[in-house]
């Protein structure tokens, strides 16, 4: 047997000499690791949800606007290129999806009520892969083509306007000459969204119909692109920037929605802080256990030293003992977290606080998500910090004078 094997065997047997102590410590590590992973899975689930909702609703991954549009979302800040020119620039490329839209502030009026909304003139075919509405039509149907003369509105807005499917509403906005542009539309579809807030904010209509109403020929206010990966939009951004005219404003989603962007960044920070805090709380117990384990074996360690075992082997022995303990705890904690996350994959219903979650931009069903990177972070942090924490007791154990140690009562 080589030396490492002997060390491992010694450490393993030492670990079980006082099984109560070891079991208590392993339980603590297990609970700690479980909490690290489960909690991050919950948070990840929430953020992923926010990302999915947030991005599907409108931003896409990358957007193009007129330079002024984001500051002043008015019809006067149209993208200078016509649709034909845009088609020429982007039509050849194999984007996952892209679409052009007319997005203007407007007022919607039913027979009884009026509300301020954001009007979106869309091309139903191109939009299919990008925005959320199509799958969420609960009544009626979606727009047929971009010349459709109907509108799609949210369930909440429908209630507030005191109207229903098939009824007519009037949409008012302004044309480029600041004349009021208005037009009657029939409500052809009603959508449902989670969070509800979008139901009150957005109204969808055919792009060509809106262009005609506003008198802007075939011009649009924004072009939106979808790439493969939300977390890595840089390649898409590069491609779009190259293709787009240099006087246009090309932005990534996290620049368009600063709240969402900062939320995702903060999550990464939060995972690490959370893991470290839990580890620190654990470390006191871990170091304590090791100190005690070494202390009660002083005579034995003295004997081993007297028989010629190298101090470095004593250090190794204590460290291996600590790592073994951590590994068992990690394995159990990971397994526990995995089982719980798997059993909760249908989501946790937190609709009791739905409106609060809406303030945060999340929906009312939470789906925990095990993110490999978070699991690895948690495990690596525990092992590395655990190793560092066991250095001091291990080093002290190897410094005993054999004779003193053996004679110690």
């Amino acid at each position, binding site marked *: 047997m080589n030396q490492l094997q002997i060390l491992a065997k010694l450490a393993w047997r030492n670990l079980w000499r*006082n099984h*109560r*102590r070891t079991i*208590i*410590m392993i339980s*603590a590590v297990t*609970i*700690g690791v479980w*909490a690290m992973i489960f*909690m991050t899975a*919950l948070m990840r689930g929430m953020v992923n949800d926010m990302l999915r909702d947030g991005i599907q609703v409108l931003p896409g991954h990358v957007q193009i606007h007129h330079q002024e549009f984001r*500051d*002043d*979302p*008015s019809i*006067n800040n149209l993208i200078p290129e016509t649709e034909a020119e845009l088609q020429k620039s982007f039509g050849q490329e194999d984007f996952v999806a892209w679409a052009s839209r007319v997005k203007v*502030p*407007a*007022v919607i009026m039913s027979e*009884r*009520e*009026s*509300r*301020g909304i954001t009007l979106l003139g869309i091309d139903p075919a191109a939009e299919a892969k990008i925005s959320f509405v199509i799958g969420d039509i609960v009544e009626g149907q979606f727009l047929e083509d971009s010349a459709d003369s109907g509108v799609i509105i949210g369930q909440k807005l429908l*209630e*507030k306007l*005191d109207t229903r499917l098939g009824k007519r509403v009037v949409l*008012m*906005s*302004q044309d480029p000459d*600041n004349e*009021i542009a208005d037009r009657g539309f029939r409500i052809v579809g009603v959508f449902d969204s989670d969070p509800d807030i979008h139901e009150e904010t957005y109204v969808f209509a055919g792009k060509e119909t809106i262009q005609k109403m506003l008198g802007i020929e075939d011009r649009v206010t924004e072009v939106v692109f979808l790439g493969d990966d939300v977390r890595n939009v840089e390649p898409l951004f590069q491609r779009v920037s190259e293709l787009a005219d240099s006087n246009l404003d090309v932005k990534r989603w996290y620049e368009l929605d600063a*709240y969402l*962007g*900062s*939320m995702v*960044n*903060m999550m990464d*920070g939060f995972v690490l802080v959370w893991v470290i*805090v*839990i580890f*620190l*709380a*654990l470390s*006191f*117990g871990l*170091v*304590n256990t090791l*100190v*005690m384990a070494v*202390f009660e074996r002083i005579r034995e360690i003295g004997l081993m030293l007297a028989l010629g075992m190298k101090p470095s082997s004593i250090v190794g022995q204590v460290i291996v003992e600590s790592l073994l303990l951590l590994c068992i705890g990690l394995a159990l904690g990971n397994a526990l977290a995995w089982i719980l996350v798997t059993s909760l994959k249908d989501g946790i219903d*937190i609709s*009791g*606080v*739905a*409106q*609060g*979650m809406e*303030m*945060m931009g999340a929906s009312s069903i939470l789906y925990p998500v095990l993110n490999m990177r978070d699991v690895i972070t948690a495990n690596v942090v525990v092992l590395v910090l655990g190793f560092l924490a066991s250095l001091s007791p291990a080093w002290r154990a190897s410094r005993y004078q054999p004779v003193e140690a053996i004679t110690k009562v």
Partner: protein
Amino acid sequence: MNIVLRLAWRNIWRQPRRTWLTTGAMVFSNTLLIFMMSLQFGTYDLMINNSLQSFSGHLQVQAPGYKDDSKMRQSVPQVRTLAAKYRQDPVFQNVAARGGAFALASSEDRSYGIQIFGVEPEFEPGVSNVPGLVKQGRYLGDIDATEIVIGAVLARNLRVSIGDELTLLGTGRDGSFAAAIVTLVGIFDSGVADLDRSIAEIPLGLFQETFAMESAGHQVVITTPDLSLVPAAKIEAENLLPTGADLVVHDWDALQPGLRQAIQADLTSAWFMYMLLVILVAFSVMNTQLMSVLERTKEFGIVMSLGLTPGRLGRLVMLETALMGIMGLLLGVLLGTLVTLWLSVTGFAYPGMEEMAANFNLPGRMYPKLSMLTLFGGPAIVFAGTLASALYPALRLQRLQPVEAMRAA
């Protein structure tokens, strides 16, 4: 000094390193708990006050259903008379009547759909901080003047400045076409983008005339001197409702359900983290006390054979734990207070927090707020957890057989 107490005190210092490590775990979690809870509760207060001050007040009298649908015809008749009646009652701090409607506001070259509030210029400053946030021009004067005050973002989007005229278009209470031309007299800047972008205030008299409200309005907004007085004030407000009037009183919780739920969601996840810290500390203490009991088996055997009852021994172990717990509590509270006080002066910020905070009407820097609850709540639970965890080692003593114990190695 009581002999048991002296024994316990000496016992815990037989292994200073172990005692310090165990106490260290408590100090660590107590400090963390105090800081986190102070930050949390400070934030909640700020969240509630900022959200309520800006607009909704503590209580509102409305027509049933107005809260959810805010339709024009869900109105409060004789709204100014009702407000004046409430103003007589000293229970309420400030009372103001309001009407609300959506309209399209047009300047010379821009139009936006916005929310228009008709307010009593004399009383509005008591229930909302918007009047005080007027940075350019002045707030509204006469109750019938054709004046308007709008948010800074809206003013920028509409490209208007003080003295310019705005046209308002909307629907009146009877479904008629409502229109008014008003002069911009003031621009407010609250820093909350939503408010600054979408809200305008005009005098209530003008509002009633424009939107065919006659003498009706939509809400009577009431503030009380303190949040805790809201429930009593609500009952008083309900008693004062005119007999036979179909009106309801909502408190801030009902007006902004998202607020309490966001707090609740945050509290729940925070509780999970806090309990976890407590459990980890408890494990650490359990381990320590179990060890200290096991290594004294022989000694306990001797004192028991000399006539000491297992019950007294158990109390000794509990007392030792309590002593460590008190040390952890005192040091933790001291350290926690220092850290929190320091941060409550310098403030506390982390990257990305500003965007997040803006979503909840909060400033970019947080100031934790110490209170009796945040100072002693966490440490008290840690202390209780500590004592509970020592029960296992203490109870084990009850089964100790003196003769066997004395022979233990």
